[in-house]
């Protein structure tokens, strides 16, 4: 007999499907436009408007606009995709009204893609536009799974063989392309190393290939004959298939494993129908509710080794079990969406791009621990995310996925939104709870932990957005699969916000245990401009700076902690030789000082004093024993503060003192900044042999501190110089030394 919960879910899917069929009837071409705070800031709304105007003006009824979230490819936004039936999706970058016009007229109407506008086809260093060409784009793509496990066995041989086969058949790369993508998560334990998975695009077929003979068979069918080979095809779909499908050809994306971000940039975040139809929406929930076994949810999460993505890395299964065991009721589920690290936007991207996954994760949490009510705690600075969550909650409620008797299972659960008012510390769980309660957002002493006494002193589970986003996937695809993705201690992936001195910035989701090198050098494309990598700052303002020598460190909770940094919520800032680590430490200390809540003495007073010392150091006013003083304070604040904010605030300082001591000492004892970054420590001098007396520097100096007759070497008055560097910029003879 059909389980009523499954039947209810199936009915929802059927209804969604019917709605889509009627809505999309007659449309064959899809224009995908990114829509998120970042995309909109880059101009996505104008682009959307432009496409709509064009569709209306041309009277084309077969073209429809598909709004999706963001992919986290910040510097290339707005991103637009053009999907025509039977063809590989084409993505364009940095689209504006003019480019939208070209895309519409040239590609959609004329059938010729705009090569010069393609996403990531232009090197980051290139400043001139690419030439316009009329060449067709590849029609077929063979994407090999490039997970480490696939790479260990015969995977690389098969891939090479495939390239060889193309050569032998005389098929140019411009027509059929061989690519690699990150782990599909398809191989069972016993198959590891014995084969490789191959995705054929745009046909959407996956093959498991274990020998050269099988490869040739697939090659003949798919490439030469253009037909499927059902014998070797597998029914399973790679996780993040939709993502691979859309973006698998882009270097920045195809080394990533999009699990938490699987739907961001793929689905319309405001459409429950799409989540149900294309995002395996609420399948996990329906299965769990059909089984009526909350304990099983917890067992699965524990076996999956899912650890809290908010930074602490506490095992999620353990946390949920702790809350479940508590006798008190009611219990609460809280989603911590108070993302406050400067430069971090993983949570925002997820909430704006895929709110339903987070909601599904929270409902599952509520079911597992026995809660009937939950809250999103979102910072008020995320108005679009708030709007999308709110819309998603309404849609879910209307569909019977939230509220009383979810899917006819007898389980009732509902969610509300609470807004944060801009205090960083409210990301700390006890401060967050106080904030929801209407108290001042300050942490309190733990234990008791929130699982024992949380919101309104009731058992409460607080997890980060990314943690909840992972929950439905874990339950859908199983603990073993998820655990395999990561390290022995920590399953799954982690999303990082890659920024700083790196070619490709944006959101990067990679399996736990991926090395810093892979993230920064391969996905991020390394440091631009031929500069040397100096350090990687991870974990936001409470993280540490990891020197370049540790580039092969696997990124997971424990390894980063050992190096004196933290995973945090996933900030990753790349620093090059031009960055002064003392100045970076000062920057982060200023942030921690400003965001200290003021409750405990070490953090409130200590961060202020540490900042004062760091400011003295970069201003060239350091006292001889300032480094010892700084270190003493840093350890005090780290060891004696009340909450995680204070305990982690000294990390940037301590890691800088540990790995970049010489640089610190140069500032203190020699009043010199080796990176030539600290303005107060710089001196500008004219090199007389090179100066031709062109007077450019003197004319451009804003404080008129450069003197000299025309055609005579000039002189800079160091007392009046404000070290702005303008003279260096304008000198055409490299005659000004900065040191």
């Amino acid at each position, binding site marked *: 007999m059909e389980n009523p919960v499954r039947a209810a879910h199936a009915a929802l899917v059927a209804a969604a499907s019917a709605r889509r069929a009627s809505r999309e009837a007659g449309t064959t071409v899809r224009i995908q436009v990114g829509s998120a705070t970042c995309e909109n800031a880059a101009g996505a709304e104008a682009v959307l408007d432009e496409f709509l105007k064009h569709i209306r003006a041309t009277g084309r009824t077969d073209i429809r606009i598909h709004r999706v979230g963001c992919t986290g490819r910040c510097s290339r936004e707005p991103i637009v995709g053009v999907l025509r039936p039977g063809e590989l999706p084409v993505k364009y970058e940095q689209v504006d009204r003019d480019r939208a016009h070209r895309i519409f007229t040239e590609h959609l109407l004329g059938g010729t893609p705009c090569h010069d506008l393609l996403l990531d086809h232009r090197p980051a260093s290139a400043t001139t536009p690419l030439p316009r060409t009329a060449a067709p784009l590849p029609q077929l793509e063979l994407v090999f799974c490039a997970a480490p496990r696939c790479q260990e066995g015969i995977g690389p041989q098969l891939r090479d063989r495939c390239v060889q086969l193309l050569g032998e058949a005389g098929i140019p790369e411009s027509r059929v392309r061989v690519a690699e993508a990150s782990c599909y998560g398809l191989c069972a334990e016993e198959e590891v190393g014995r084969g490789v998975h191959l995705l054929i695009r745009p046909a959407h077929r996956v093959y498991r290939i274990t020998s050269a003979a099988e490869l040739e068979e697939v090659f003949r069918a798919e490439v030469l004959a253009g037909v499927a080979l059902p014998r070797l095809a597998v029914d399973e779909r790679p996780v993040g298939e939709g993502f691979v499908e859309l973006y698998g050809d882009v270097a920045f994306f195809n080394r990533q494993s999009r699990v938490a971000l699987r739907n961001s940039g793929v689905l319309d975040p405001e459409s429950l129908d799409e989540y149900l139809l294309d995002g395996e929406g609420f399948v996990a929930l329906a299965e769990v509710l059909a089984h009526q076994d909350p304990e099983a949810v917890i067992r699965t999460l524990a076996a999956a080794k899912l650890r809290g993505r908010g930074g602490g890395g506490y095992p999620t299964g353990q946390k949920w079990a702790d809350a479940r065991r508590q006798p008190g009721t009611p219990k609460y589920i809280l989603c911590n969406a108070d993302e406050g690290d400067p430069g971090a936007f993983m949570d925002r991207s997820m909430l704006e791009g895929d709110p339903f996954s987070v909601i599904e994760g929270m409902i599952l949490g509520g079911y597992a621990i026995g809660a009937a009510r939950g809250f999103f705690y979102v910072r008020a600075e995320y108005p679009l995310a708030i709007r999308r969550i709110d819309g998603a909650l309404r849609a879910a409620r209307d569909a019977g996925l939230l509220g009383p008797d979810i899917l006819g299972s007898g389980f009732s659960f509902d969610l509300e939104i609470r807004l944060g008012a801009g205090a960083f510390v409210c990301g700390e769980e006890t401060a967050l709870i106080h904030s929801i309660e209407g108290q001042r957002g300050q942490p309190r*002493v733990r234990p008791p932990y929130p699982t024992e006494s949380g919101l309104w002193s009731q058992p409460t589970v607080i997890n980060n957005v990314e943690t909840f986003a992972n929950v439905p996937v874990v339950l859908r695809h199983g603990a073993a699969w998820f655990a395999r993705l990561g390290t022995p201690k920590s399953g799954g992936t982690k999303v990082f916000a890659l920024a700083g001195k790196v070619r490709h910035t944006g959101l990067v989701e990679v399996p736990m245990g991926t090395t810093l090198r892979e993230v920064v050098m391969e996905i991020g494309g390394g440091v631009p401009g031929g500069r040397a990598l100096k350090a990687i700052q991870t974990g936001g303002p409470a993280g540490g700076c990891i020197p370049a020598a540790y580039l092969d460190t696997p990124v997971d909770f424990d390894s980063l902690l050992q190096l004196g940094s933290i995973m945090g919520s996933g900030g990753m800032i790349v620093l090059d030789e031009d960055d002064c680590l003392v100045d970076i430490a000062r920057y982060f200390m200023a942030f921690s000082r400003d965001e200290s809540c003021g409750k405990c003495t070490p953090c409130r007073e200590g961060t202020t004093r540490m900042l004062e010392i760091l400011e003295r150091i970069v201003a060239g006013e350091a006292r001889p024993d300032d480094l010892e003083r700084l270190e003493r*304070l840093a350890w005090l604040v780290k060891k004696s503060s009340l909450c995680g904010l204070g305990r982690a605030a000294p990390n940037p300082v301590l890691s800088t003192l540990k790995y970049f001591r010489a640089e610190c000492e140069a500032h203190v004892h020699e009043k010199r900044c080796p990176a030539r970054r600290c303005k107060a420590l710089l001196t500008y001098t004219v090199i007389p042999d090179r100066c031709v007396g062109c007077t450019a520097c003197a004319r451009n100096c804003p404080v008129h501190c450069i003197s000299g007759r025309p055609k005579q070497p000039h002189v800079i008055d160091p007392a009046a110089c404000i070290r702005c560097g303008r003279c260096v910029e304008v000198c055409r003879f490299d005659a000004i030394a900065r040191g």
Partner: protein
Amino acid sequence: MSTTHDASPPAPTVRITIDGQLLEVEAGKTVLEVAEQVGIRIPRLCYHPDLSLAGACRVCLVELEGTGQFIASCANKVWEGMAVRTNSPEIRQARRDIVELLLDNHPLDCQTCERSGRCELQELAYSLGVRERLFAGARKHFPLDARSVSVVREPDKCILCGRCVRVCAEVQGVNNLGQHGRGFSTLVSPAHGRAMDDSVCIQCGQCVAVCPTAAFLEKSDTDRVWAALADPAKHVVVQVAPAIRATIGEGFGHAPGEDHTHKMVAALRRLGFAAVFDTDFGADLTVVEESLELIRRLEAGGPFPLLTSCSPGWISYLEKFAPELIPLASTCRSPMSMTSVLLKTWYAQSKGLDPRQVFVVAVMPCVAKKFEAARPEHRLPEGDPYTDAVLTTREAIWMLKSYGIDYWNLPLLDFSTLQDDFDSPFGETTGAGAIFGTTGGVLEAALRTAAAKLAGPGEEVPLEFHQVRAVDGLREAEVALGGRTLRVAVANGLRNAARLFDELAAGKVYHLIEVMACPGGCVGGGGQPYPPPGMHVLDPELLRLRAGALYQVDRGKPRRRAHESPGLRRLYDEFLGEPGGSLAHTLLHTSYAPRGPRGIR
């Protein structure tokens, strides 16, 4: 540190090691409490045993042996096998540095500070060995709020321990104080930075009492008193509240719980007051008037309950938080105000003095009395206040010290010409007035008189009502009086009073309720001396000792029922006429009005 979430019931004892000493201690206690039991007093600052846990100052850190981790001993309960070090070099340095960090953001004006020598921060800095300033830098600067007539707030001296915030919320239920801003420039103040008197502050002064520094102080009136004493045109008299004799000695190093009536009177006389009167007289008068109100209501069948009105902090609370109860409150002025009224009328007349010549000083255990004295209801028709200056116990102690009165060395202050008894007529008082200074005392005093008035012929009249003594916050009792059973209740600390009002709202019937704003009543008043070493503000033991002195005074009095006072009889005969009569009503009674802070109501 591993956190165990063991569901099994906790063992009654656990074994832990403190500084190498293996101990078997009660489970469920904190490290700080356990250490105290074995004679180690871990330094602390924000911790207060009678307030909620803050864990904010981090002074009470100890080291978890073997791990190098620091934990706050006030916040962590002992667990089996725990090993801590309270004095490792690292811990000693950390504590010293934390206190230095507090000092670095604190004005270094100890010599000129009101709390010099009695400051917890100063004491900590000394005992932890802060001898040099390693981290000094910028300091916070906030304006002084001295606009209140009772409580002065000096945020620059605040070290953000949060005790005032907690006492205001948890003991008084007033929630006037909160932390504002964040980080280095966090500020404790009423909402929106309002002046204390514009806020919901009830002027009880418990913030002053619990503050470890001088961030909260009473508004000083000593200068005005010195000036009046030096003014030959003024006839300066002083009245002393019941609770002062039980605490004034503490200011001079005497143990709590000693009755210092005679020493106190002689010392005040030495200070130059023309007469030293006993507020107990006003207390006796209050009892007579108030028990009459009770009897009248009993005869009329209500309204009930009668709420006592001696505590000005409570009256402020009534007007601000529970105005719907105003019709139930006794209209009697407080003992201080009754005494002051009589000093400027009856006494002035009898001495042939213009009331404006008489300068009335009241020594009170109370900060709110300063507010009461300034209220328009307590002024002569011409506008002069009946009470010209209110000194807290602390201010009075300071004046005696400042004068140079050798309070400690002399077993009795015997200034040959100075007598050490209160002046007449306000010196003839009963035991009923004496016990006004402790929780339950007003109720007991009223019951003593009411019992006598209501007793049938030949019925034995009870004197002592132990069921309303030593009230730990809240007590209800039933008392049989003259064939009736009265349901009475005592509350001290307004949070407790609010609980009673909830019961009232739920329909429970009481006939008489005594409310005191401060925990323990006046002996725990906001103007009382800072507690002696080894004790803390709100310490039940300290309150018990102080109350003991008052019951001792009571037992020593020849008359213990207020209406038996010969002084009172003279007062009614010579001046007031009938108790509850028209002149008594004009002079001894007052009225209340709802009083929201500005912008509310």
